[in-house]
Structures are given as C-alpha cells and as structure tokens.
C-alpha cells in the first residue's frame, strides 16, 4: 500500500531544497507521487511513496529534511482536522478516501485508512504527542491544550516522553512571513513520526570542532549538500581538485566514498599555513586532510592528497572518477593561481632548485572553469556528476552565460546569496556522453570575471560611503552655524 508522508524541511537554503531532493530521489530511484505541488513558500512536501523504506532512504541522506511524518490527517482548520481524524477511524476501505468534492489535491477532506491509526493503539505501545508550529510560538501550556484535544484517539498505551515506541506529531503552518502572522494557521497536519533527516550531521561535522580548517573551509551543511548533489555512494571514487583543508572530502567520505584531493598550495596540504582559527598561534602537528578524516573515523576512505597545478594534466588517460566535487578559488579570499612567470626565457640555476618555491601567475576564472569542465568531460564516468561553486555579481547573472560543455548537462543550479551584490551558485553537471572524437570540444568557461567586478564594486561603494559621509558632515556644520546664528 502506498503511504502518504509529510516531509518537513528546515527553512534555510531554500534554493537548494528541490535540487537536493531530486538528487536523492534519482540516486535511489524512488517513485514519488506528489499529492500537493511543492512550493518554496511552504516548509513541507506532501508525497506518496510505495513503502516506509523509501522515506527512510530519503531521510538517510537529506540534510535539509528535518523529519518525515506518516500523514493521518490534514486540514485548513482545526475543527476540520479533528473531524477528518474521527472519520478516518471509521474508514475501513484500506485506502485514502477523497472528500465529496473529489479533488485530487491535498484537499482538506481526505481520510486516511483506519489501519494506520489502529496499528499504534495497542496497550503495549508507549507514546507521546509533539506539537510544532511554523512562524508562531506557543507556550507549553497552550501546547498541552492542543495535545488534550486529541483525547478521542483510541491510544491505549502509556504516555512516555523519553524514547516512546510511537511519536505522534501535530503541526501548524502559519505562513512564511514572520511580519504578518495570521490568527489561525493556514494548514494543519497530524500523523506519526517516522524518521529524522540528517540535520544532526551538521553539528557533528561542524567546522567549530574540526581539527584542520582553512580560511575558506566549506561549512558542514553545504559540504553535505554537495555530496548529495554529486550522488556520492558507498565505494565511489571522488576527487576534489581544489581540496584545501578537505571539507568536501570529509562529507563525501561520510557517505562512503574513497577520496582523492589535489591542491596547488604545498603549505596547506602539509598543514603549515597560518592557522585560521581565532586565537590559535600555531598549527597542531596532526592538522591535515587525513587528520580530518581520522577525526570522523573515515580514514579508511582516504586515498591521497597531491600537490599539483590543476591547469596541467596529472591523471592517466582513461582513468575515470565517480564524482568531482570542488570549490575553486574565486580570487578574493583565495587567489586563483597557476605556476608561471611573466618574464620570457626565465632559467633557474641548479643551486636554487632545491626547495625552490615556484612563482605563480593569475589563473583566470574563465580559464579555470573551462579546464574544470574539460577535465570532467574526460575524467568522469558517464552518468556521474561534477558539482562546483560559481561566484558572480548578482545583477549580472544570466543562466546562458554559465560555464558549459557539450558533454555535460547542467542538472541543478542553486543560489547562495553572499552579500547584497554577490552570490555563488552551486552548479551540478551530469556527464551525458563520452567525447568519442578525442578532440577538444568547444568549452565555455563562463564570461564572468568575479574578482575584477568584486573589487570594482567595492571601490564604488567605498567612494559612495565617503561622499555620503562628507555630505553629512557639511550638512551638520551648516546646521551648527545656523543654530549659533539663531542664538546670537
């Protein structure tokens, strides 16, 4: 029997929700029926799935899902919710019964089969009821009142607040506008809690507790999201060619991937850069990408990290990764660099060769993304994914100007706003075919010069601020003079 579920999401990274869910659904090949069309303005999805296993699979991966509820009743008003629930107790058809108006949507007169409720009523099952509200706060007393209103349910087991056999959930949705909260909720739901999403992982992987971090270490939630976007699964081989402190590898390894990383920064990979943490004077001895994996007990998934320049070839021909997950430098907080020198006919003498640190030149974003997409087109298994961030100035964003490659199809594109003017987009490409010709195909590395624009923009706002300040000073001086004149 297909069951109906309410998937309740965390209200953040809204632009990533659909992309993450789609990735997980297609990773496990899960058939989903939408009972109500998902809306970004609602923190939930109402879906039907063939069995509980499927909802558990989704929850085993998603970092945006808070929890999944087996839906028993939904309505637009409190009285209707209770009426539905009472009628459901008499619904012995074994399926959901649609209301008189017979609409196929999540109309508020749907009745769940009574078996769902009866399965929880045995005297052996201890239970509790949780009340959750979205965009409104209730005191404990009010919550208890809400719980009391379900007294007609034939629950015979004892109440147990700590780890009961069954947790029932009552949820009220008051819209997504905290400045305009209505008196009564828009939607109400009641059902049985099934499983939580992976929100706890965000704390577990938190950068605050990570041994080795750098200036641009990716936040735990986004790293996990990226691993989901890349559809990383057990036994996959994953590469991050701009690995840094290895945040992305940590989350890929969490989902069972074997990981390789490379970076041009020798000092970073050897854990000898200046510490990024406030108050820390020196890097500890065990600070390394490997040390991070050890911290999360995934060291067995660590393959290697290599010091190398991404603009040059490194891997053997024909070798293919299952996923490439990366956050290239944007040229602002981390420089975009490759080995090189502006001078012609530059030669190094023998005596300088030992411990020589090579000079670097600018590695333009356009060139970098072109190389990255070409690399993915040759070194990715067909059907697998490249997931990377792309920084841009918000007002100049045009989808058709994003980096593109004929062998890669852009399957997801989610925006994370960084400031009023800038954002970065998480781009997910799926390799749709192998380039059989062996020729380099037309690659578009995008046309955005983020660094230049970022600093030009900064200049402008700095100047504006200065001008505004001097205007204010002048106005104040005038006012003072006028006040003085009035007094005398």
């Amino acid at each position, binding site marked *: 029997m297909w069951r109906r579920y309410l998937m309740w999401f965390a209200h953040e990274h809204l632009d990533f929700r659909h992309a993450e869910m789609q990735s997980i659904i297609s990773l496990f090949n899960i058939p989903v029926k939408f009972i109500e069309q998902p809306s970004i303005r609602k923190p939930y999805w109402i879906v039907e799935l063939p069995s509980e296993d499927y909802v558990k699979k989704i929850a085993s991966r998603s970092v945006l899902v808070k929890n999944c509820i087996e839906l028993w009743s939904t309505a637009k008003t409190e009285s209707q919710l209770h009426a539905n629930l009472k009628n459901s107790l008499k619904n012995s058809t074994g399926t959901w019964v649609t209301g008189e108006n017979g609409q196929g949507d999540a109309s508020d007169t749907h009745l769940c089969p009574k078996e769902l409720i009866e399965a929880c009523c045995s005297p052996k099952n201890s239970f509790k009821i949780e009340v959750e509200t979205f965009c409104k706060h209730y005191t404990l007393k009010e919550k208890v009142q809400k719980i009391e209103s379900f007294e007609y349910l034939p629950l015979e087991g004892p109440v147990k607040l700590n780890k009961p056999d069954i947790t029932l959930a009552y949820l009220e949705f008051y819209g997504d506008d905290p400045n305009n909260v209505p008196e009564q909720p828009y939607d109400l739901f009641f059902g049985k809690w099934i499983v939580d999403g992976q929100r706890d992982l965000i704390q577990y992987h938190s950068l605050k507790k990570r041994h080795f971090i750098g200036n641009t270490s990716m936040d735990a939630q986004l790293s996990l999201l990226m691993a989901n976007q890349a559809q990383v699964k057990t036994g996959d081989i994953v590469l991050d060619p701009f690995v840094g402190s290895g945040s992305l590898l940590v989350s890929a390894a969490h989902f069972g991937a074997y990981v390789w990383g490379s970076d041009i920064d020798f000092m970073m990979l050897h854990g000898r850069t200046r510490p990024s943490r406030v108050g820390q004077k020196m890097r500890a001895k065990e600070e390394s990408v490997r040390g991070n994996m050890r911290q999360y007990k995934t060291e067995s998934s660590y393959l290697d990290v290599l*010091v190398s320049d991404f603009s*040059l*070839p*490194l891997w*053997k021909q024909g070798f293919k990764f299952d996923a490439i997950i990366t956050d290239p430098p944007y040229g602002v907080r981390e420089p975009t660099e490759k*080995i*090189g*020198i502006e001078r012609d006919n530059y030669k*190094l003498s023998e005596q300088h060769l030992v411990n020589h640190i090579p000079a670097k030149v600018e590695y333009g974003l356009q060139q970098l993304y072109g190389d990255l997409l070409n690399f993915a087109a040759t070194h990715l298994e067909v059907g697998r994914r490249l997931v990377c961030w792309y920084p841009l100035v918000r007002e100049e964003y045009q989808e058709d100007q994003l980096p593109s490659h004929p062998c890669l199809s852009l399957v997801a594109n989610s925006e994370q706003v960084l400031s009023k003017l800038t954002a970065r987009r998480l781009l997910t490409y799926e390799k749709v075919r192998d380039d059989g010709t062996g020729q380099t195909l037309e690659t578009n590395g995008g046309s955005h010069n983020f660094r230049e624009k970022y600093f030009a923009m900064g200049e402008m706002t700095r100047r504006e601020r200065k001008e505004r300040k001097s205007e204010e000073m002048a106005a104040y001086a005038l006012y003072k003079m006028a006040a003085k004149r009035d007094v005398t």
Partner: protein
Amino acid sequence: MKLITHNMLTSKCLKGVMTGYPLAINATDIKVTEVDFNPEFITRVIPKLDWEVLWAAANSIGHGEGLPKTLEPKYEENEDLLKKLHRVLLEVEVEEGNLTCPESGRQFPISKGIPNMLLTEAEVQ
C-alpha cells in the same frame, strides 16, 4: 602515497612528455597502516588498474610478495587475492622518496606521504 595513487599518476604536465607513465618509485621510507577491508571497492577498482604497473611498482618497493604477475579472471571470488591487493593498494604507503618521469628523468619528491607534482616556473614557459 599509496600505490593506488601511483597507478593513476603521470608526468604529462612536463613539456614534450607524451605519456609520462608509469613513474618510477624510489622510496626511502615506507609505512604500512591498517585500513578497513572492503572487497566490493577492490573489485570495482581492479578494472581501473594497470596491472603490470601495479605489479612492478609493488615489487620495486619490496611489497610484491604473493601478487600474481597476471590477473586471472574471476578475481572477484578470490578473497586471498583481494586481501593481498587491498594491502598493496591501500595499506602500503611511500612516506619519503621520489617519483621519476620515465621519459625525461625529472624527479618529483614525496614528503610526509604527499607527492609534489609541481613544476617550476621555468618548466612551464
């Protein structure tokens, strides 16, 4: 550096080098660390390996014992082989040493287990 990494690496970054494969290993310090055995992963990795290169590399650093020179079919059922491979690919690590390009003789140092494949600015001109 593990031997699985060595099996995938080239020195193609050098100008004039066509394949740059396989790199010769010159190890001065080798470490063996225990890693969880995952037969599915090893089975999946085998088709991606250049067997001869692996065999030669393992022998060159003295850890080739028990590794057959050619790969027999139905390897996925041979647990002894998978275990041996697991050890050679994932547990044996070159801590200090060099990798040498087979065409140009250019050496890439390995320090603290991390190969440094960077060229100098003079080499990329």
